[in-house]
């Protein structure tokens, strides 16, 4: 009975009835594969992962150190730059002040010089005028005397007299010109 039932199962190949050999092959195959994975594959992969993580973290630490160093250098440079700017400003200010000083000095010197030149010119002009006046006076006297002697027909060669006449005339002339200058 039992064997015929089982025979029936076998002949219709009930898809749910396992073949024990296949079952055993599967279990053994799985076990062999699991052994290989545990023993070789997984440790190798995990070790690689760990090494890579370490390398990356080491790299990050190194990068952080470099970053800190760069930051320090940068702040130092910034400080130096600020110092240099301050220094430059100071120098510029000094130069400007010095320039102004020089300019003022030059102006003052130029003013003094011009005053001196003016004064000298004035003096020279006065002297020349004085000289001209003197020479003019003698010359005009001589000419006037000559002229008068020709007019009156007599010699006015008497120097003393003629000199007196001329002086009086000139004195009158000066007086009149002075009064005219005063009236103006």
């Amino acid at each position, binding site marked *: 009975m039992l064997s015929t039932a089982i025979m029936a199962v076998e002949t219709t190949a009930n898809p749910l009835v396992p073949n024990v050999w296949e079952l055993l092959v599967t279990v053994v195959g799985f076990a062999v594969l699991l052994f290989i994975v545990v023993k070789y594959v997984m440790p190798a992969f995990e070790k*690689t992962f760990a090494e890579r993580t370490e390398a990356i973290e080491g790299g990050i630490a190194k990068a952080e150190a470099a970053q800190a160093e760069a930051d320090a250098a940068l702040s130092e440079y910034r400080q130096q730059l600020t110092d240099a700017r301050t220094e430059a400003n100071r120098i510029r200010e000094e130069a400007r002040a010095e320039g102004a000083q020089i300019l003022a000095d030059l102006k003052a010197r130029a003013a003094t010089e011009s005053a001196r030149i003016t004064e000298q010119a004035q003096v020279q002009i006065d002297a020349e005028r004085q000289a001209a006046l003197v020479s003019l006076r003698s010359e005009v006297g001589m000419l006037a005397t000559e002229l008068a002697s020709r007019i009156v027909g007599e010699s006015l060669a008497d120097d003393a007299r003629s000199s007196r006449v001329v002086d009086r005339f000139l004195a009158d002339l000066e007086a009149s010109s002075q009064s005219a200058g005063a009236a103006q």
Partner: protein
Amino acid sequence: MIALALPATTTDDGFIAPTIEDTHYPNILPWGGEYGVMFEAGFGKQMALMILSVIIIATFFLIASRRRQLVPGKLQFLGESAYGFVRNSIGKDIIGGRDFMKYVPWLFTAFFFVLVNNIFGAIPLLQIPTFSHPGSAYAIAAIFFVLWVGIGLKKHGLRYLKLAVVPSGVPWPILIIVVPIEIISNFIVRPVTHSLRLFATMLAGHLIVTLAGSAIAYMVGSGSILLQGTSVLVLLGFIAMYMLEALIMVLQAYVFTLLAAIYIEGALHADAH
């Protein structure tokens, strides 16, 4: 195409659909049938593929993990991505915390074992998802059943059996109903569905491939212009199903591993539920 060679397709009495027996190929070595009915005689293609999958996975990951460079090459990157996917997306995210590393090899092995064996079904000539045979599906689900029950017992002692079936904060009259449901759901339905889900999806996909292949062979060989013309439609539909099947193969490997991780997590933190 293996399917074209199936004997059931070219009989003169019209089309005879292939049966599940047609998906069991003749054995390579006649061997071991004398122990009982459930011991089918012989070393078949399915077992050969199972062993092949172990060799493929082991070889690939041994080579990929061997050179251990800080900046990985293509092969190492592929291996690391695959390992990292199971380790982080399944192990770490589901089990979490400090304990997950202990279970990563189990999940990793399960994922690639199931994945490669499923993909066999999409490769011409190999053309059989190994888990479409129930023995393999039962075996791998049983491994995880034993694993998570073991984890629970180790972590919580015999109290685990109570923790697993008696939800906290439920009044006792309701417990009379809830406790049997929990026992059935956790200790019977869970491992059964864990294995049947994988097995059934793979078998169904494989049957569709077989059916479509033999149907096309029959239609082309029938001598009728109409049937030969229609076979093109079957071929197009078959290609679409083939693509869908490939997707399901990957998806089921993921689902199987994900559920295994969820069961392990449930056993680890049974007192928190």
